[in-house]
């Protein structure tokens, strides 16, 4: 006891002791009164341990929220993380992945040397030699099979310079449109949704909507786990404004449902019918904002019965036909709330309740969604239908009012959507448009004929082409398709075929590096300079804060090195020291003007991000309204993305999923994420704290189904679809509960490749596959 008091430097006199007791200093009291307690030795006198930590800003490496972080750097190593209080995104709060993000740099099995496959095994090779091999293989493939036999497949984790250099090299220099990114699997439907309704991509609002909204509707979007920082901001808004409501509309009960004021469950795929039923009710109740609709909305119908893309070479082109409000009203007759009750599993009362929230002129409403609506064989349609709701009631482009499509990767917006690393895209516009090609040719300094006016393969078709042999060389950067492709077995077998050459740039060994012929070690995140663009149009710069390990090199620089070996050094003349700034200046030229102007490099270095359009030194927080958007003409709304200056309300019907549960395969299979792991877990599983929290994948079942099948928590369960089977532990009553007749499996775990079961059906407009719905059978493993 005395020992302890001395340690703490306490006054041990009787009077002092009594005085502290009188104040019931709990610390002293507990320590003094409790026998049998041992105390740690003093830490006093240790040299200052926190000296020399420098704090530097960066956006988070993980999801599309794009939180601002401050990374503590000491002796060339990242040692700590804080939320950046100056970031408008997260205002100092992070999630468990962000707080532990820097640990992802330090997995013991980091790739630090280039590997080249020799006689079947990957052998360490000097990186210059590996880059020579990549370049010569590309040349050889182009010579033998043509330029469309080489492809690059990147991701929404590409920095903006990575994607820009990839696009310039493949589209501008080589002249192939074989540029795709895993964001096709993630938000392509959001893009086509925006383009078909507004003519321009990306949300009109920003995260500040949360501070103004009265109602939040999450459409198939477990924000508590997937966009936790934004969800906490919503909870904070509700704590301060107790009238604020959170409504969770989902096919699975989650932490979001638990925190919501109301949880509404629906049958998979029927969100289409629910959205139309809400519009039906809004019109029948007379809640339409008639002036807004008359002045700013046009009605269109498109093709129906549009297929599912299950066959190789599937092609589809939609066609917009003019319609009227009366056509629309007649179209909605099938969607009266009572008529869709049985289909959707949602009561007419609940649909009317939702409609009343959207329709109430005194409530500001934000709708949020992410993969639930985007990974959907009618993904473009359901995006359109949410816009319909907001457009009918005129709740859009105002603080606290608007539809908001969230993304899952740190630069799905910044790189894939804005730089345009998709087969049909250019940094400005599309390859099909002669003016856009001319602009790209001029800025890139290439002959305009170099740019092929015909898109080649979207992601699923690109991997099919690899399987068929139409694509022979594929360079995969910052992504893990051998875990994430749907109907995985076909595409893995295809990648392993003879005569295919696969280059993989990554930071850790993955199932994708397992099929590689060359593995290039990448500099990760803050080991190099770069920019990400998040869900709210915010571009954020990060510097090289720590040196990369071994031979690791940024993806940008790998591409430049190969481009130079291919003879394109004039197109990529930049120095290692200033190339990111130079690339940013060249790239920004594509977006000059009030509609998409980008913040200058110096501004991005200086502050935690800027939202485009960045005009006259200011971020544009809400687009399409003259009050906030310098590009909008007049003094009110201006949907300048469409030639008619209007936003389009689409007549999109409910159509069923391609594969629905039947007698042979009676369960829906839904896949997704958990808060602790990100994407395929190649980074988060190497963070001990995150791995310990969720060490392996599992299958969630509804308790009633589990009881019926005799499955208890932890039992091995066999799942089988028409494409593959898997055995994994059951999880009942965990963080999520699927609706009866549905099972849920997270996809982060490479030991349980759930995508061997999923279906490669996609939205015919966006070409984005549906990972949320296919049919499986479920049984307790080890039984007939």
């Amino acid at each position, binding site marked *: 006891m005395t020992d*302890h008091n001395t340690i*703490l*430097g306490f006054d041990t006199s009787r009077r002092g002791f009594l005085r502290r007791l009188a104040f*019931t*200093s*709990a*610390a002293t*009291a*507990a320590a003094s009164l409790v026998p*049998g*307690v041992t*105390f740690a030795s*003093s*830490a*006093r006198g240790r*040299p*200052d*341990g926190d000296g020399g930590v420098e704090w*530097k800003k960066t956006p988070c490496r993980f999801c599309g929220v794009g939180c601002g972080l*401050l990374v*503590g750097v*000491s002796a060339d190593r990242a*040692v*700590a*993380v804080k*939320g950046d*209080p100056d970031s408008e995104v997260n205002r100092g*709060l992070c*999630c*468990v992945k962000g*707080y532990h993000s820097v*640990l992802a*740099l330090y*997995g*013991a*099995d980091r790739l630090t040397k280039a590997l080249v496959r020799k006689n079947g095994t990957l052998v360490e090779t000097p990186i210059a030699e590996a880059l020579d091999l990549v370049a010569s293989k590309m040349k050889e493939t182009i010579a033998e099979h043509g330029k469309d036999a080489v492809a690059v497949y990147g991701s929404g984790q590409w920095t903006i310079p990575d994607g820009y250099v990839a696009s310039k090299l493949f589209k501008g220099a080589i002249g192939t449109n074989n540029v795709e990114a895993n964001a096709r699997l993630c938000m392509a439907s959001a893009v086509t949704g925006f383009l078909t309704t507004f003519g321009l991509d990306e949300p009109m609002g920003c995260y500040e909507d949360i501070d103004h909204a009265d109602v939040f509707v999450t459409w198939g979007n477990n924000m*508590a*786990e997937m966009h*936790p920082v934004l969800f906490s901001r919503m*909870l904070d808004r509700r*704590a*301060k404004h107790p009238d604020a409501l959170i409504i969770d509309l989902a096919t699975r*009960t989650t*932490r979001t449902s*638990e*925190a919501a004021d109301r949880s509404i469950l629906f049958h998979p795929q029927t969100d289409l019918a629910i959205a139309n039923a809400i519009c039906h009710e809004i019109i029948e109740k007379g809640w339409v904002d008639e002036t807004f609709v008359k002045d700013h909305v046009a009605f269109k119908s498109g093709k129906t019965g549009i297929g599912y893309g299950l066959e190789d070479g599937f092609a589809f082109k939609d066609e917009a036909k003019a319609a009227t409000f009366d056509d629309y009203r007649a179209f909605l007759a099938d969607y009266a709330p009572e008529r869709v009750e049985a289909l959707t599993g949602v009561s007419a009362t609940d649909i009317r309740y939702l409609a009343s929230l959207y329709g109430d002129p005194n409530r500001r409403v934000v709708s949020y969604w992410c993969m639930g609506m985007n990974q959907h064989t009618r993904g473009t349609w359901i995006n359109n239908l949410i816009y319909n709701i907001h457009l009918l009631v005129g709740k859009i482009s105002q603080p606290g009012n608007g539809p908001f499509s969230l993304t899952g990767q740190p630069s799905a917006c910044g790189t894939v959507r804005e730089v345009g690393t998709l087969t049909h895209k250019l940094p400005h516009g599309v390859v099909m448009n002669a003016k856009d090609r001319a602009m790209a040719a001029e800025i890139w300094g290439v002959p305009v004929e170099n740019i092929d006016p015909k898109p080649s393969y979207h992601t699923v078709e690109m991997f099919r082409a690899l399987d068929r042999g139409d694509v022979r060389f594929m360079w995969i950067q910052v992504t893990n398709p051998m875990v994430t492709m749907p109907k995985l077995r076909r595409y893995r077998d295809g990648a392993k075929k003879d005569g295919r050459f696969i280059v993989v740039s990554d930071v850790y060994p993955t199932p994708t590096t397992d099929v590689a012929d060359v593995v290039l070690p990448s500099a990760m995140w803050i080991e190099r300079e770069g920019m990400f663009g998040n869900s709210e149009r915010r571009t954020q710069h990060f510097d090289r804060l720590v040196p990369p390990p071994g031979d690791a090199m940024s993806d940008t620089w790998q591409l430049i090195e190969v481009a130079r070996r291919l003879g394109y050094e004039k197109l990529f003349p930049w120095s290692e020291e200033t190339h990111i700034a130079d690339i940013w200046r060249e790239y920004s030229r594509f977006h000059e003007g009030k509609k998409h102007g980008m913040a200058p490099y110096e501004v991005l270095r200086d502050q935690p991000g800027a939202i485009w359009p960045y005009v006259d030194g200011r971020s544009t927080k809400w687009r399409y309204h003259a009050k906030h958007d310098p590009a909008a003409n007049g003094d009110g709304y201006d949907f300048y993305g469409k030639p008619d200056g209007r936003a389009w309300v689409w007549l999109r019907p409910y159509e069923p999923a391609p594969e629905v549960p039947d007698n042979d395969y009676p369960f829906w299979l839904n896949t997704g994420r958990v*808060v*602790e792991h990100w994407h395929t877990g190649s980074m988060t599983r*190497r*963070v*001990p*704290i*995150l*791995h*310990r*929290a969720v060490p*392996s994948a599992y299958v969630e079942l509804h308790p009633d189904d589990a009881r019926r099948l005799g499955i208890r928590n932890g039992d091995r369960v066999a799942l089988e679809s028409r494409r593959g089977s898997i055995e994994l532990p059951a999880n009942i009553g*965990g*963080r*999520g509960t699927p609706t009866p007749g549905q099972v849920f499996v997270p996809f982060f775990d490479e030991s349980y490749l759930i995508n061997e079961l999923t279906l490669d059906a996609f939205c015919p407009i966006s070409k984005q596959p549906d990972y949320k719905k296919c049919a499986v059978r479920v049984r307790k493993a080890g039984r007939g």
Partner: protein
Amino acid sequence: MSAAKDRRTAVWLRALRTLLFVGAMIAVVVVVGEQIRPRHGETTAHATHGHGVLAQVRADSHDVRFATPLTLPAHARPTDVVVRTLASYRSRRAYPGAPPVVPHAIDPDVFRTQDCNACHERGGYVEKFAAWTPITPHPQWDNCLQCHARAESTPAAFAASTFTSDAWPSLGRAALPGGPPPIPHTLQLRENCLACHAGPAAPLEIRCTHPERTNCVQCHVAPATVPAFTRTAGASR
């Protein structure tokens, strides 16, 4: 004489009775009041948010003071309590300032509803762990598992990690002998000093000797997070 004496005695007795009655009433009010005093939930999101550090610390110190073994009946007083030390405090954090992991099993309902603050907002003794509940310094946030991962029974590592962070601040960093030590961390998400520095769940080495003084930042200053200084060209005119 004796009549006068009796009268005096009667007056004294009356006065004594009145005094006893008043005393008894005060005792009743105090005892009953203490029983019916609202305790849990005093520091709600509203109370803690927007009232500044001072008010919050006051409110919480009131809470914390009642959560001592002294308020327990003698037979319920813990005899073998796990007392938190800086070593155990650090073992749950990847680096100084990291959100701690959850070291105990989480009830399945709580795992979904995230009602962690039911215990961690106010603290208290938990018999099954023989420990005092650490108090959260930020009860206004309630999507708890967003930041705090459950530490499952330890499975084999997916891959070893070479991450190290030995940036823990030392104790006793006062500029002058006897002076108030500065706060070695920012107050971001840790606005409530007493949550970690007082009460039976506070790590021993960092317990405050004077929790009754609630305006902590009057004497102890917190550092701002200063980004590294970079010289901008042309800054010196």
